[in-house]
């Protein structure tokens, strides 16, 4: 009963972990290379969701100083971390996709298991 209420209170974290595991499992087991890249993006996005869930303060404003009002400001650090993480994920995705284009031109397939078959016969 306590565990159930614990899960329901923290459902942001639960969803983030579930997405992370889905992303990691797909990245390692599915054969299609583009699916692996998409799963990597899902995995990174789930960690960003975790960061947002950590940095949430109830009823807080965006962390930009406005004149006069003396309200609670949200923590700006997770936002900066997530922005940097998004840039990194985009760079890795761009590089992985360009590698896939070149591999497709050499091997003729986007399926990683078939590529391993072709390599093992050479």
């Amino acid at each position, binding site marked *: 009963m306590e565990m159930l209420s614990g899960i329901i209170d923290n459902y942001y974290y639960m969803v983030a972990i579930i997405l992370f595991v889905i992303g990691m499992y797909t990245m390692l087991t599915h054969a299609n290379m583009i699916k692996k890249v998409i799963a990597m993006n899902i*995995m990174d996005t789930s960690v960003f969701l975790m960061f947002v869930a950590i940095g949430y303060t109830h009823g807080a404003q965006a962390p930009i100083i406005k004149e006069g009002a003396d309200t609670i400001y949200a923590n700006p650090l997770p936002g900066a971390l997530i922005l940097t993480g998004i840039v990194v994920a985009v760079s890795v995705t761009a*590089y992985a996709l360009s590698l896939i284009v070149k591999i497709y031109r050499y091997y003729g397939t986007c399926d990683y298991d078939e590529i391993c078959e072709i390599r093992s016969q050479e």
Partner: protein
Amino acid sequence: MGLADHFPALIIVVMFISAFLSPLLYRWAEKVSSYFVTASLLTAFVFSVALLVQVQQSGPVLYYMGGWPPPWGIELRADPLRVYILIVVISVSLWIFLYALRDLKHELKKTVIGWYYSLYSILVGSMAGIALTNDLFNLFVLMEICAISACAIISIKEDRECLEASFKYLILSAMGTGCFLLGVAMLYMATGYLNYSFIQVELAEAIIHYPLNIFTAAALFIAAFGTKAALFPLHVWLPDAHASAPTPSSAMLSGLVIKIYAFALFLMFYQVFPKTMLDTIPLNEIILWMAALGTMFGSIYAMIQTDLKKMLAYSSIGQISYIFMGIGFHHDLALVGGFYHIMVHAVTKALLFMTAGVIIYSTGVRKISDLAGIGRVLPLAMLAFTIGSASMIGIPGTGGLISKWYLALSALEIGRPFFVLVILASSLLNAIYYMPIVINAFMHQEDFQHDVRTVPLFMQVSLLVGMVFIIISGFFSRPVVSLLEQAASLLF
């Protein structure tokens, strides 16, 4: 002096400046670009030696980026161990680059060599940054830069094997990064800081309230750094990646990149997590057993290989496991052995890969069975291979013995003689696959079958420098060992 205060940041900045100027220089003034990158590597080396002198005189140097003190700002920290790794990284990169100046024209297309210099500089700059940084998110960004540029210097050759190997490395490395980022989120959730020193202070109390968070973070870090540093069950990307890359990239990857991640794991365990955690929960046992299996399996896989570079790549798995054993024993002599092995193996494996590159450059031969009788035609290269193999096996007089000696000594001191047997058995297995090549090269009856081109002067000088260094590190090891002992004793 004004400039001397800024050395930690300037080392990284100099490498990034050379990284972004070299494509422009290569497009318009080709010869200048290689001189420029060499000059920037030399500058970084001089700065890091000056930083070592500073650290020896006045203790750890803390540098605040942007003038903001932590916890608001990013901090760079230079203490003896980090500066030691920094000097190893920059000097070995400089040495490999001098070899690469001649070898790259043979292996890559002409238009991409400028980009290779740029990627090389980014790689060296990011490794220097990983060695110096004191902030978890800065570590994440630098790790990603290192991973992308490491994959890129493999795939820049653009033939069938290296593209697939580079893709496999990228995907597994991205998995490691995802785990690492989740670990950072766990630690940030428990403490609210991202700076190593601040987290260590906070975790000493927080570990009582949130034990599961912190152990999850530790487990995720082991998974992340184990994947990137090729710890035993997570090593599957390494053979293809290191064997199909151009030779300077293989030397750089096998020699430096996997070790900087082992060093980062060491920093996590000893400078981020509180000191009492490893005494109560023996996480280093996991690393120790995986490393012991790795030394065995690395050698067993290497024995059955027929391609020279793939055999060297599998041998790297065994050797990096020695460094992980050094971390796994949780004893100061083991740390001395492990860190000495970082330096020795970086030089040795780079020397062996360079020898393989020289053999491929002058004869085009890659299979081990075709190397019969080559010692009479390329004597300098095979002498380098012999000395490198001796260091891998651990023959007295070379640097490889010193590190294994300290590892075995610490295994006896903590009362686990089983690991002495593991070290001896793996040395024997190393001998089983290195010695036949050496003996076959020099003493085979028939002569060498293929044509031989002359080896350029730069490559010969590089091989000579490597050989001399291995022998010096075997006999005159006292200065480095005393620095490491002094640094390791502070942690216990």
